[in-house]
């Protein structure tokens, strides 16, 4: 036999016992060719295109799941930023298009559709402002549409006027939905990638072709198990074994992505090698760090441990595929990772430590519940802090905060299903108001003098 029994069983064990899966296949669809001065024709063009390709995606992904025995958890679609395609339309066009996207994804059995958003790092067009103002209504009246905003970049700096608006908008979204759950479908970015397959921030960027099939692999459970097996080796050796495992799972992801793209007759885009947790036992990024020897994530040493972990994942991933892209960092969504949650509950992990983790590899403050009475300016200030790390370090950072109405620090909140459960985090009560309300644009950073 060309493969040893151990090799075959390694792959089988990953899928059977360590939650190795394809977290998402996300088809990027250009919607610019759907634009029509008549809103009814526009909506019908959008509906037809999304449902046709959405149904094909679900159908072909199912066949590939069977062929390789690797579960494909989510089938998703990302579209051209909606603010761009409704520029010439009437006032209520963004919401009308959102409802069409919602209906199309429901009819095609697509679980989430991303792209209701705008790129406003340098300033807002009239259409961008209109879309931002519509976010509370959109997120409380649709089920599957996800929203994003890029409000900062290394080349343009940070649009503080947009960030001011977001404090109030997040509170408004939260007040209109149970436990503020609408906020879980909205991510704010610096340096947002145009080919990110993960929600809530996925959109089909303007530099992309008509279609692009992007894939997000995931295997915190697989990596955790390899760390568990190597308790004795030093950190150099540990990096090596993680690298090899990342190579293997990335190769599987690339194989599945390329074959799916071929079947759908669309170009293959990227493999996003981010480690993405779920609430399943053992499928936790916090669990990996703790297996490396940190008692609870958040304790001193966590930043170094996570830096080593993701560096090894990137090295293995880059060797395995020439198409690594998207976010390709670590997701440590608090409510979606049981280990992170336990760290918050036990007081090991603060929002400040989470912010520090994003300086080395995490892609943002993700799925964090904060007290409902947090002032809007404080929310804007947390966003500004987090995004400035991305701007200055030339990397993507994002924020997905949920100011849960009526809840205070330490309270328990359950978002249900994959969104998980969490404890409300403690937020500084010192004011940032006067700084935030200055507004304007924070200039782009100097990129020499790297200290």
């Amino acid at each position, binding site marked *: *036999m060309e*493969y040893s029994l151990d*090799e*075959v069983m390694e*792959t*089988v064990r990953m899928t059977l016992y360590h939650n190795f899966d394809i977290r998402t296949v996300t088809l990027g669809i250009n919607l610019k060719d759907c634009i029509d001065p008549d809103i009814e024709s526009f909506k019908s063009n959008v509906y037809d295109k999304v449902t046709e390709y959405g149904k094909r995606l679900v159908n072909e992904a199912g066949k590939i799941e*069977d062929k390789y025995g690797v579960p494909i958890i989510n089938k998703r679609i990302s579209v051209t930023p909606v603010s761009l395609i409704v520029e010439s339309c009437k006032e209520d066009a963004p919401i009308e298009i959102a409802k069409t996207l919602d209906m199309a994804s429901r009819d095609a059995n697509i679980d989430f559709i991303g792209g209701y958003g705008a790129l406003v790092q340098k300033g807002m067009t009239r259409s961008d402002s209109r879309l931002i103002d519509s976010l509370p209504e959109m997120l409380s009246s649709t089920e599957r549409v996800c929203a994003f905003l890029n409000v900062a970049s290394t080349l343009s700096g940070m649009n503080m006027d947009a960030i001011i608006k977001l404090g109030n908008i997040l509170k408004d979204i939260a007040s209109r939905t149970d436990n503020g759950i609408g906020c879980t479908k909205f991510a704010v970015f610096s340096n947002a990638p145009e080919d990110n397959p993960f929600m809530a921030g996925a959109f089909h960027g303007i530099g992309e072709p008509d279609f692009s099939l992007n894939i997000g692999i995931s295997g915190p459970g697989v990596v955790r198990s390899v760390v568990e097996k190597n308790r004795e080796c030093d950190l150099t050796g540990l990096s090596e074994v993680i690298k090899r495992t990342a190579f293997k799972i990335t190769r599987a992801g690339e194989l599945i992505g390329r074959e799916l793209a071929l079947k759908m007759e669309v170009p293959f885009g990227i493999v996003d090698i981010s480690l993405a947790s779920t609430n399943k036992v053992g499928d936790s990024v916090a669990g990996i760090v703790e297996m490396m020897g940190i008692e609870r994530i958040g304790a001193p040493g966590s930043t170094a441990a996570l830096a080593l972990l993701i560096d090894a994942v990137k090295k293995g991933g880059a060797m395995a595929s020439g198409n690594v892209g998207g976010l390709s960092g670590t997701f440590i969504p608090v409510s979606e990772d049981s280990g992170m949650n336990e760290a918050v509950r036990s007081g090991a992990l603060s929002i400040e430590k989470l912010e520090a983790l994003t300086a080395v590899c995490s892609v943002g403050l993700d799925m964090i519940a904060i007290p409902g009475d947090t002032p809007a300016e404080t929310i804007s200030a947390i966003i500004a802090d987090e995004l400035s790390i991305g701007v200055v370090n030339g990397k993507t950072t994002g924020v997905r905060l949920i100011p849960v109405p009526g809840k205070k620090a330490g309270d328990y909140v359950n978002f249900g299903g994959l969104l998980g459960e969490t404890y409300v985090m403690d937020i500084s009560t010192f004011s940032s108001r006067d700084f935030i309300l200055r507004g304007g644009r924070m200039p782009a950073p100097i990129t020499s003098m790297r200290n």
Partner: protein
Amino acid sequence: MPKDLVFITVIGKDQKGIIAHISNAVFKHNINIEDLNQKVMEGYFVMTMLADMADSKASIADIKREFTEIEKQMDLRIQVQHENIFKAMHRV
């Protein structure tokens, strides 16, 4: 005709008739057994069978359905996966 290879893997408690049941199901669908390996790993019976589906009319989904009953009867885990994934993961 090019081969269409799949790995059928079985994990479970060692007992009589495992290979007989699997081979029977495979034969029924006109699938050729190319190679077979078995051993006891960490107290479990483990078997990997490399099989060629080129002459079979059945799909991988059909074969999996066929194995569901055997899994239940004999308390086994049976996986069917196309060979390409092993090539991608274990060969540079």
